[in-house]
């Protein structure tokens, strides 16, 4: 009887499919081979003149070819997040479009956004994204480097 109950519980867990338990482990993903189309993106004022409304937004665009090494988690349910490390004194916002292998989204400095949820089906996930960066131009006084990285959550 006890064995039957255990089997039933196991079947129930399997039926959950890609649901990741709350105690999932998180790992940084090796993205060796990922590269941006240009080393430095010139941020441009959205409005050349500040005008009466005082629009001080600066924006820039860069394409990034992603190559995520998921070989450690092959055939396992997982969630993948794209993260942006805290930026230098300014809440920069990054918004991206994808080719469909990852989800489009938005992230602020210090945050992360879900870009994949499901079973990992391939060792290397390759995707091209277009990153649109916006910030308050009054607060972006110096050149800086934005650090993006990917995290994966899988069940233990």
């Amino acid at each position, binding site marked *: 009887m006890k064995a039957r109950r255990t089997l039933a519980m196991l079947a129930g867990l399997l039926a959950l499919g890609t649901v990741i338990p709350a105690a999932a482990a998180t790992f*940084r993903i090796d993205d*060796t081979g990922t590269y941006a189309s240009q080393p430095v993106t*010139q941020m441009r004022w959205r409005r050349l003149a500040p*005008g009466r409304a005082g629009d001080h937004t600066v924006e820039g665009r860069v394409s990034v070819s992603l190559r995520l090494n998921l070989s450690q988690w092959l055939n396992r349910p997982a969630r993948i997040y794209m993260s942006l490390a805290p930026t230098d004194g300014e809440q920069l916002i990054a918004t991206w479009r994808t080719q469909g292998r990852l989800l489009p989204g938005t992230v602020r400095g210090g945050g992360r956004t879900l870009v994949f949820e499901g079973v990992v089906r391939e060792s290397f996930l390759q995707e091209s994204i277009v990153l649109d960066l916006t910030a308050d131009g*009054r*607060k*972006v006084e110096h*050149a800086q480097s934005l650090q*993006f990285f990917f995290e994966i959550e899988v069940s233990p």
Partner: protein
Amino acid sequence: MKSSSLPPSRAQRALLGLALACGTWLPSAHGFTVGISPGQRSLFLQVGEGTMSGGFFNSGGTPGDNPTVNSASVTVPAAQLGSGAAQPMTTDSTVTASPWEGAAFCTSPATTGQVYVGGFFRRPGVGSGGNEALLTVTTPTALTNTNGDTIPFSRIAWTSSGIGDATATIPSGAFVGGTQDLLTVSRNTWFESCLAFRYLNSELVPAGTFTGRATFTLTAP
């Protein structure tokens, strides 16, 4: 089965060494970097006629150089000479619209003599220093006629206004015959006003046409 506790064989040590060496040669990356640079500095001043292409500033238009030097003038009736009754000046400027979005900002120059003056100062950052640009105007000491007679430039004053402005951005005033400050322009701000000039007509002067040029300058640190 305690093979894991046995010391590694020579071959295993060699493999381990090779793996470590490979790790050194081909380090894995765990993130990518996007470099960004700040927005560019810019300065814009329009006095009277200006040139915009591609629309107005708020619709992506860009300004061009406009070499036009507009005039403000008045003919004082003989009966009014030196009476102290200020004589409003007219202008050949036809600008009523703000280059920001094209809305009417000055009242018909043909009837009011208003001359549009506007601009902005763009600079990224909020750090100390370099926060303010300065709008100045420079005039000679006097207007002159062909005989060498003079009228002090300080006999010309202006009233500043703008449609929708409760208080004019550029203060009203009078020329001083030299360089004078008109307005401190904060970093990343827009300014504009319409200046209606008048001749103060406070003294008798010889006959003739008296001319002089006022040059407006916007200076950024």
